């Protein structure tokens, strides 16, 4: 598998002249790019993926295939990957966007400052040029959108249902048919849920005791939908419960788009070209001409295809579109889920011995639905803090550090982290502008993001309500914190799907208006973001776009 991917990369470097025209060019190898490419390759079309494709070439080989606890007690080289060779795993700034990026995951945003610079007065997005994109460090949360989440979209949940299934079958999703089923829907391809740790077990037991009361208040608790394998699937997994999911993918149980790139590379219909930075496209006759820069040497390249799929991440795709259309200085809307952390203490876990066999991802999912399944819901995920090292937590306290360490060793089994995600709607105060770079400087994207007072108050009200329900689970909120506007890393809405003809929008099939054959398959096309991670829906929509293009190319 790996060798196919390597061959693809090497052939691209050695190939001189203009490469042959293909049916479809896909820009980006992230969650949406690979899932748009998959049905096209399956249908027999010639697909070429252009990608910068940065990878972790420092740490992956150092990390043993063992549990976090075992590594901590035995591996003398652990400091290299846990702290980083340049100690970048010791963060001193405030917790913000990308806080969960450990040194072995930091390759995900490597080179973005140079190639895709951003100017902002507070909104600092995490972007990726890596093989697998941002999903290479993704938390694997896969809650599908509910019917009400599609408000403002020109498509409905029923249109995506078959594509949710196709993606679930491809990537492997685990979950339970529990209290959250009415909010998360069902998937035939769903694997059994992963085992939860002692802290989550204790919360579930208490939830069972007070469930009727909590449900009446609109509070529902259950297992999360995760792209985490609990059974072997396509040569991957199942999870070994090594608790190393923030550091490595040794058991290949968590879905990473690179697994799909590797699978696609085994097909003669697919070609992966790394080190390609796509700058712009143009339509000429029946062809799409894509201008890219080969980063191994810097020379310009031209690629031709019948169709182009843009899946370079919301801001990456937006840059390419604005540059191609010469729309420098044009304001384009965007949205981003506001994220709130609530550090809580599960009082029932005080003095309890924690279970060591666990995974590091979300243990539980909470849905706050005061108006039932028909109304808007707020979705949160519950984590236990174990494998991100204690010193990082000690940094957040203001106690003497020796006492802080002592207290944390006692409290860690009970420490519960709730990450709540709020919906986001476009507004005139949330926009980006592409500014032309001077001389050799690259173009830069200027971002402005300001939530209204009403939005902040509404989020605060929901958080208070949710935290109050957690008190019934014997969970005490120690601190609520807002890690900054860009922290969720869920960006969308720059080229929204609409029913009506408008410049810089996409039609319901994902085609960029004003073009014949340029499609958008990533978050750019989502007109708004509901209160739940959009990655799974983005993958399902990318699969839908790929299927629609396949039908169109067949004529």
């Amino acid at each position: 598998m790996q060798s196919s991917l390597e061959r693809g990369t090497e052939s691209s470097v050695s190939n001189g002249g203009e490469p042959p025209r293909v049916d479809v060019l896909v820009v980006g190898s992230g969650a949406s790019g690979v899932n748009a490419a998959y049905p096209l390759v399956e249908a027999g079309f010639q697909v070429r993926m252009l990608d910068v494709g940065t990878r972790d070439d420092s740490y992956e080989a150092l990390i043993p295939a063992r549990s976090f606890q075992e590594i901590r007690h035995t591996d003398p080289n652990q400091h290299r990957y846990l702290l980083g060779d340049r100690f970048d795993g010791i963060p001193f700034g405030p917790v913000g966007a990308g806080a969960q990026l450990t040194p072995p995951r930091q390759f995900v945003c490597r080179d973005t400052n140079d190639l895709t610079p951003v100017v902002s007065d507070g909104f600092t997005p995490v972007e990726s040029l890596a093989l697998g994109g941002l999903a290479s460090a993704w938390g694997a949360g896969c809650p599908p959108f509910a019917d009400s989440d599609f408000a403002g979209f020109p498509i409905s949940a029923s249109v995506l249902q078959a594509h949710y299934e196709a993606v679930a079958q491809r990537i492997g999703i685990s979950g339970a048919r529990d209290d959250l089923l009415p909010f998360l829907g069902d998937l035939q391809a769903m694997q059994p849920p992963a085992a939860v740790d002692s802290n989550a077990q204790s919360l579930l037991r208490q939830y069972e005791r007070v469930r009727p009361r909590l449900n009446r208040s609109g509070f529902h608790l259950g297992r999360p939908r995760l792209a985490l394998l609990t059974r072997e699937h396509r040569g991957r997994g199942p999870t070994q419960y090594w608790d190393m999911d923030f550091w490595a993918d040794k058991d290949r149980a968590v879905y990473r788009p690179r697994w799909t790139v590797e699978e696609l590379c085994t097909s003669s219909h697919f070609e992966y070209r790394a080190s390609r930075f796509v700058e712009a496209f143009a339509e000429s006759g029946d062809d799409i001409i894509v201008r890219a820069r080969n980063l191994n040497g810097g020379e310009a390249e031209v690629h031709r295809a019948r169709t182009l799929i843009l899946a370079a991440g919301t801001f990456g795709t937006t840059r390419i579109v604005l540059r191609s259309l010469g729309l420098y200085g044009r304001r384009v809307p965007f949205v981003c889920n506001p994220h709130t952390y609530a550090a809580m203490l599960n009082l029932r876990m005080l003095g309890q011995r924690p279970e060591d066999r666990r995974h590091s991802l979300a243990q539980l999912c909470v849905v706050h639905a005061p108006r039932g399944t028909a109304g808007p819901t707020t979705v949160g995920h519950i984590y236990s803090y174990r494998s991100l090292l204690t010193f990082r937590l000690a940094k957040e306290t203001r106690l003497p550090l020796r006492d802080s360490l002592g207290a944390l060793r006692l409290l860690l089994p009970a420490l519960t982290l709730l990450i709540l995600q709020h919906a986001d709607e476009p507004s005139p105060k949330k926009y980006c502008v592409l500014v032309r770079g001077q001389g050799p400087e690259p173009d830069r994207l200027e971002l402005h993001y300001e939530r209204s007072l009403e939005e902040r108050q509404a989020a605060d009200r929901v958080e208070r309500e949710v935290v109050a329900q957690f008190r019934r689970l014997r969970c005490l909120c120690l601190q609520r914190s807002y890690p900054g506007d860009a922290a969720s890393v869920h960006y969308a809405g720059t080229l929204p799907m609409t029913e009506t003809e408008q410049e810089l929008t996409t039609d319901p099939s994902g085609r960029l208006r004003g073009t014949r054959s340029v499609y958008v398959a990533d978050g750019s096309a989502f007109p708004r973001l509901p209160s739940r991670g959009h990655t799974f829906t983005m993958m399902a929509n990318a699969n839908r776009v790929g299927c629609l293009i396949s039908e169109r190319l067949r004529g």
Partner: protein
Amino acid sequence: MTDPLETESLAISQYLLAVRPGRDLVQRYRDANAELCPEQPAWQDRAMLDFVRRHPRSLPLFDAASGVLRPHSLLRRKILVMMAILETTPQFAAHFDTENAGRLQVLAKLGAYGLRSVVTTVAGLLMYAIVIGTRHRVLRE
């Protein structure tokens, strides 16, 4: 002449875990300082560090005072750096494992940590006022 970074690393390790780090960990502390700590610290940071190097037993007091007054001070950073290095060393991993204790014992220990924190913070604030105040007067003159 003793290397000041070595002095610091020994003092911090003694303070945090009552252990003595090996030469490899001291070197790692030096490397981390070169990456993470500014070459030209603020005068308050310099004053605290000078004092702690001369009187390592004052470290708990300055740590406590900094936690309240200047949680991002250079001294706190240095303690965190050494804590990170010790935590990622197998020899000291057990010092960072969760502690198994009954609920009452947990509450009692938390109370004891709280009490010790209060006492060291009060003493630390006094010490901080004296040391930083003295250095401030010297700088003004």
